[in-house]
């Protein structure tokens, strides 16, 4: 019997014990500075939610507010949870990976062991997922603390944030392996990541974007992550929409891993 083609391509190939060794390395580095990760992981959401959610929210709510009378704080909190995890993942798949390839060349040392290029890709992707999980959980704690969620389903925003983080990290890691300097990252963040952060429905519904730009939002994984997290947090769940959004995120992640398998090999096995 013919299996589906995605099955044959085995997107998870390389997720072996060897890639866990790479994750172990990253956790060892993390252990040296875990407190700074925790501290910034709590400070960021607190600052954002107080300034935008409570501060700006005061004016939004006073001027008619959002449809359905959703408080602005509750509107942006799950969206910011996802974007923060995404931003961290995007940065983590750019400069640090470049360092391992080009500057400190620790990937080259690892390749002299039984590890291969794919183990490095998958292992570091697991680390990025771990870091996204940590950030999302801390963000969730602040949301709960500020009473910024309308439904207990908000806890499911954590896996959504992690999936969104991977949907960004995998293609960016693939891109990083094609770069000869970090110059490309400035363009990527200035013209890619930052606009997405602002225009993916994080702070206002994409329906408020100019008509021409609205379909573009559909193609950004962040929009899907934000939409799912928000619907969970507000307790307004539409199963079909949810499946489409999660499917779009998963597709991005899988495509990124495939691209990474090609570019990592091409860069590291020469």
């Amino acid at each position, binding site marked *: 019997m013919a299996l589906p083609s995605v099955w044959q391509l085995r997107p998870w190939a390389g997720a072996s014990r060897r890639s866990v060794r790479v994750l*172990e390395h990253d956790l*060892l*580095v993390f252990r040296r500075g875990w407190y700074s990760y925790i501290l910034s992981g709590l400070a960021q959401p607190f600052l954002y939610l107080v300034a935008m959610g409570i501060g700006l929210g005061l004016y939004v709510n006073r001027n008619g507010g959002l449809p359905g009378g959703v408080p602005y704080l509750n509107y942006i909190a799950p969206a910011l949870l996802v974007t923060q995890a995404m931003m961290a993942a995007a940065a983590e798949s750019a400069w640090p990976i470049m360092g391992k390839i080009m500057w*400190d060349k620790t990937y080259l040392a690892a*390749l*002299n*062991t*039984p590890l291969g290029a794919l183990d490095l890709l998958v292992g570091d992707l697991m680390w990025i997922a771990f870091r996204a999980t940590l950030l999302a959980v801390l963000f969730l704690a602040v949301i709960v603390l500020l009473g910024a969620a309308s439904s207990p389903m908000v806890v499911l925003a954590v896996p959504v944030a992690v999936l969104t983080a991977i949907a960004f990290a995998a293609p960016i890691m693939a891109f990083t392996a094609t770069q000869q300097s970090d110059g490309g990252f400035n363009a990527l963040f200035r013209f890619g990541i930052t606009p997405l952060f602002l225009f993916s429905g994080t702070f206002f519904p994409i329906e408020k974007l100019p008509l021409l730009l609205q379909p573009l939002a559909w193609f950004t994984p962040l929009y899907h992550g934000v939409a799912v997290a928000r619907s969970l947090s507000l307790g307004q769940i539409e199963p079909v929409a949810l499946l489409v959004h999660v499917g779009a995120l998963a597709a991005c992640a899988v495509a990124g891993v495939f691209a990474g398998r090609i570019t990592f090999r091409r860069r590291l096995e020469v």
Partner: protein
Amino acid sequence: MPEVAATPESLIHARGLTKCFGAFTAVNGVDFDVAPGEAFGFLGPNGAGKTSTMRMIGTVSPVTAGTLTVFGLNPKRDGARIRARLGVVPQADTLDPELSVLENLLVYGRYFDLSWGEARRRALELLDFVQLAERSKDKVEPLSGGMKRRLVIARALINEPSLLLLDEPTTGLDPQARHLLWDRLYRLKQRGVTLCLTTHYMDEAEQLCDRLVVMDQARIVAEGSPRQLIEQYVSREVLELRFRRDGDEADDEAHIAGRLDGLAERVEQLPDRVLVYTADGEAVAATAYERGMRPTSVLVRRSTLEDVFLRLTGRSLVE
């Protein structure tokens, strides 16, 4: 079943081994064998193809053409199995600046699937061996070049490899650091570890290598023990003569080279001196005096690998 090499006694077996990067040929059809327990060297100027050859042996760079087996295994199919038994000291240190000296070894041991306990036991033992035990908790960055090199050697030994690949192991180190490193490599050889190294230092090749090949422009141009190469390509001794450089002198150098003809196996004219390759430097020097030559300085020395190297790869600068 693993493929068995044509010559099972050799640890590394290469025939017609070739590496191309696009249109550029880095290694062009080289043949060599490395036997267990041997210290084998690749000697050659920069860009001769030494590192590319080493990377193919280390199974991190795919072979373009030809045959290569390491431990009788095929690098393309059994890369991970080969690497599990190899120790590699790359040209760049590639140490992890975010980890301590000890952690660098632990993580590396884990990459070879050692348990944490076993990795720690070996790491501490190796830090003693390379005299870095007191620095185990320090970060890597403040270490001197020689210390980093020793740490990289310790790292390469964490899997107790039977074959150690060293790419320019002492480039950039001061004499003390080099001698300490040579001493450690010599001890490893005594224990039966096969060494395969590249270098462009002749003294290093003479100190460490039982056998070596000279590479130039992607090919092997000579092969043998250091002594054999000297006997084959240069004379036993070299007489170096310097002359005063003023126009009136009859001791014009081009002229001198001619006047020494027939006395020596080969005479080489350099801008500042004349090299006379001969079995007996003293005798030629005496004859030169008899023939009326008055050099300002006379030096008789034994031939070295450097003479072989320059003879084979030329004196023009390679960059």
